[in-house]
């Protein structure tokens, strides 16, 4: 069985860490990840950019509405996610709209990925962040 482990924390606090502290946390996490990878149990790991970079596509209306910022409602639940290579926000929105046409209702939050390990096959790594 595959399990997703979703990470929640206070963004204010995490982005107030001095760099040394952030590095130290990442190093400790990396040790755990290596152990998991060693036993063949680790799938992709992603660190997302801050919520300020997020855009939300509300697809519960026609036409879908683009809103700045993360998905902030509490009446819907997180049901899944995609990792998609996009040239930029416009292409990401276009992709989300296409998915939304296939499955209207709810919303997609579109958030750039800061770090992805391992990078997916065939991904263009020119953004240099992974």
């Amino acid at each position: 069985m595959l399990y997703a482990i979703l990470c929640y924390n206070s963004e204010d606090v995490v982005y107030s860490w001095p760099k040394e502290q952030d590095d130290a946390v990442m190093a400790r996490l990396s040790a755990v990840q290596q152990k998991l990878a060693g036993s063949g149990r680790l799938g992709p790991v992603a660190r997302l950019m801050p919520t300020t970079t997020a855009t939300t596509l509300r697809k519960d209306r026609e036409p879908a509405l683009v809103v700045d910022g993360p998905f902030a409602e509490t009446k819907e639940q997180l049901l899944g996610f995609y990792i998609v290579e996009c040239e930029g926000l416009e292409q990401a929105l276009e992709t989300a709209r296409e998915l939304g046409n296939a499955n209207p209702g709810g919303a997609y939050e579109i958030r750039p990925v800061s770090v992805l390990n391992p990078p997916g096959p065939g991904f263009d790594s020119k953004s240099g962040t992974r």
Partner: protein
Amino acid sequence: MTQAAWIEAALTSARPQAVAALLRYFRDLDTAEEAFQDACLRALRTWPQKGPPRDPTAWLVFVGRNVAIDAVRRRRKLQELPPEETLADVDDTESELVERLDSADYRDDLLRLLFVCCHPDLPAPQQIALALRVVSGLSVQQIARAFLVSEAALEQRITRAKNRIAASMVPFDTPSPAERTERLGVVATMIYLLFNEGYSSTAESVALRQQLCEEAIRLARLLLRLFPSEPEMMGLTALLLLQHARSAARLDAKGAIVLLEDQDRELWDRTLIAEGLALIDKAVRHRQPGTYQIQAAIAALHSRAAHAADTDWAQIDLLYAALERLQPSPVVTLNRSVAVAKTRGPEAALAMIEPLAARLSGYFHFHGAKGAYLQQLGRQDEARDAFQRAISLAGSAAEAAHIRLHLDQMAKTGPPPEGDRAR
């Protein structure tokens, strides 16, 4: 992470919003600051035993408010505060408070607090010092070291600023949309000044300089989170991130400035660049260009060039032209001349900045750029004069050293000056 480190980070991150909310209750900066300080002391005592509260900011506001009210009561010899254990157990009250302190309140509170620090009567250095002290919670010692002034002088500067603010307090009603936009603009300028203080300042210590830049980025991100649809806040945050991304490459081992075109681009922070580019993407969708967005777009073009030679100078020239239209200023024209020198040559660049001479005669970068164009045109004597003038106006040892490098280079490669034939 140790619990102590977590608590410290939680207190640091809660400070801007908590002090802002307390300012709304007490309408006095000193009382708000003291209330927050007292709440932090209580947090340090009770959180390690009881665990951190669900919403640290709301906890600190609630406790800070009670402690301050109690202090007032005690001064009036009225009623004692309930013991700390009861206070720490604020879960029910806390959730009630969280509902009342919804994001709209926080948003206007924080904007008001920052705006108070930007009072138009206060000169820029006082605005920045005040924001660092009150909003960011840096110590007087830290700020004094960053500004290269004595602690006593800085303390005095902050007291004076606070007195001036107290004399003309900003209204506490909920601002109208127009007022909100105006406040955001003023606050954005202060955040940018704070960043520049860290980026180019007289502060000789790299660590301190970094801290000011990081603080500016933290405030910009926080504001953007509270005002998620403001394209200029996206632009400002992107601009700071893209410039800060180069910080590891900006100074060499000896602390001398490394020009953009000579920087080792491998040292640029790709994570910050990616975040900046993502924000520009978001801002562009609004089709409301502004000065921060344009400056961020210029910074982005530099970030996208793998080598200095790949830089899209023609596009940068166009962006500077747009910036000149939105915000005509001799400094913008001077910056544009750098792009013009690349696309149309040093002669055109020189012609562009010559009309600025009267207004920029006391500006280090004007004489530095003029010297560089003259040097490229082979007008060595005039170039030397311009460089000498730049050195006399340099704001830091690193700036002066950089210009001296030009002079040394001229001495080596240019026609040998009189009396120097032996070399």
